[in-house]
């Protein structure tokens, strides 16, 4: 399996998109840290941008990569290699290289500007989000053979998680404002990995005091180390479920 990952890496490095992604993140982080007075402010602005761009780039890049690797996979399938191995190598290759770009692009400026432990949470969140959205991208890619359709599904997923979902949650909150919605809000958060990531980082910044009752509830549940563990655990589920189902579809389809 390591051998196949090696060739996937090799292919990714050659097409330079990951390099451009790293540079983009570096530029973004340096700029935001320079703008804000304290590193915490920088992290807050960075969080909002990261939660918008990382899912988008991960899902679009992973989907196009999957379709472009079709020939590569076809070549390997005729060899004595397990299909699951080929699939997992593709996944790990893409997810690890994007995560590497993220850690480099955001982590290095953080070290330079001396961010706190919250910075570490942001890094972890970014890595988890990358793994989740690459898994979702692979799911979109194995569902359909048509590249355009696959990318369309991937973009829809991104729209849903990054934009539409928050709208739905806000709508529910306003429509049922007369009822106690604290635990419902918490449950709704668990249904969107992007929101989970946002809350993990926000709760570790001072701004959580501004989030009202729900914020207090979040703080009491997710503020502890146990709660953060739970939140990351949920994100892990978000990565594993689409990955496992797409792997199953891939090993049962005709090539």
């Amino acid at each position, binding site marked *: 399996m390591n*051998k*196949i990952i090696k*060739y996937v890496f090799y*292919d990714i490095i*050659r*097409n330079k998109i990951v390099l451009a992604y790293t540079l983009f993140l570096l530029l973004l982080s340096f700029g935001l840290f320079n703008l804000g007075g304290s590193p915490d402010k920088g992290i807050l602005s960075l969080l909002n941008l990261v939660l918008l761009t990382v899912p988008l780039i991960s899902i679009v890049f992973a989907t196009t990569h999957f379709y472009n*690797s*079709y*020939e*590569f996979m*076809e*070549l*390997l*399938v*005729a*060899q*004595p*290699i*397990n*299909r699951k191995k080929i699939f997992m190598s593709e996944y790990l290759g893409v997810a690890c290289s994007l995560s590497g770009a993220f850690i480099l692009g955001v982590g290095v400026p953080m070290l330079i500007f001396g961010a706190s432990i919250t910075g570490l949470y942001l890094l972890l969140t970014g890595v988890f989000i990358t793994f989740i959205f690459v898994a979702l991208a692979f799911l979109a890619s194995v569902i359909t053979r048509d590249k355009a359709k696959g990318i369309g599904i991937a973009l829809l997923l991104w729209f849903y998680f990054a934009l539409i979902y928050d709208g739905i949650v806000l709508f529910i909150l306003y429509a049922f404002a007369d009822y106690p919605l604290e635990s419902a809000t918490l449950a709704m958060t668990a249904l969107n990995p992007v929101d989970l990531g946002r809350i993990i980082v926000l709760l570790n910044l001072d701004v959580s005091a501004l989030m009202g009752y729900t914020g207090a509830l979040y703080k009491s549940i997710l503020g502890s180390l146990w709660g953060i563990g739970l939140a990351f655990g949920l994100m892990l589920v978000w990565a594993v479920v689409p990955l496992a189902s797409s792997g199953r579809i891939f090993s*049962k*389809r*005709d*090539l």
Partner: protein
Amino acid sequence: MITIENLRKSYGKLQVLKDLNVSFGPGKVVSVIGPNGAGKTTMGKCILGMVLPDGGDIKLDGQSVLGKHAYRSQIGYMPQIGRYPENMKIRQVIEMIRDIRKDAKEVDEELIGLYNLKSMYEKRMGALSGGTKQKVSAALAFMFNPRILILDEPTAGLDPIAAEILKSKILKEKKRGKLILITSHIMSEIEEVADEVMCLMDGQLKFHETIAGIKAQANEERLGRAIAKIMEED
């Protein structure tokens, strides 16, 4: 060597293979013929596990191959249209496959030499002509000295010299006791290399005969005519 039992496969509503039963022994060149869309390629891909059958079984030396992968080290496959990662060079593709198959004891580079592929090693796969891609496919199929070769229209797109090289390679490997399955539409070619002809029609076995048997049955000297006669008969 290979036994196919009640093999069924459909793509959506289209039934490609309908309860196909056939078996092949070692040291034979079997030519798989049949009209376009008869299921020739699908049968080959089922043996390789690239296409997963809906029902039935494929056995290699008495053991089912469904859901397994290690057995593929004994099969060399040359696809009808070789598709390769476009930005990889010939050298990289060949080195990659050799790297993945490091456990193979014997490496046969005869076709690489005969096709002079080394002089084109630095060309990208995406820039190659169809014929050159076929040469790479052929070289890869024979490379690890497999016991079984599945060649899907191997000479289509090859120039006459390259086709002759391939044919003599096929005959050479046959003498070493290998089973070689070839799908082809070119009768003269079949007559040259094949021992048996297997005819698929609408996903079922029409006949599986030796070439001499076919000629005798149809009372025709030319293989093409004999086969046409048999196919028209029923």
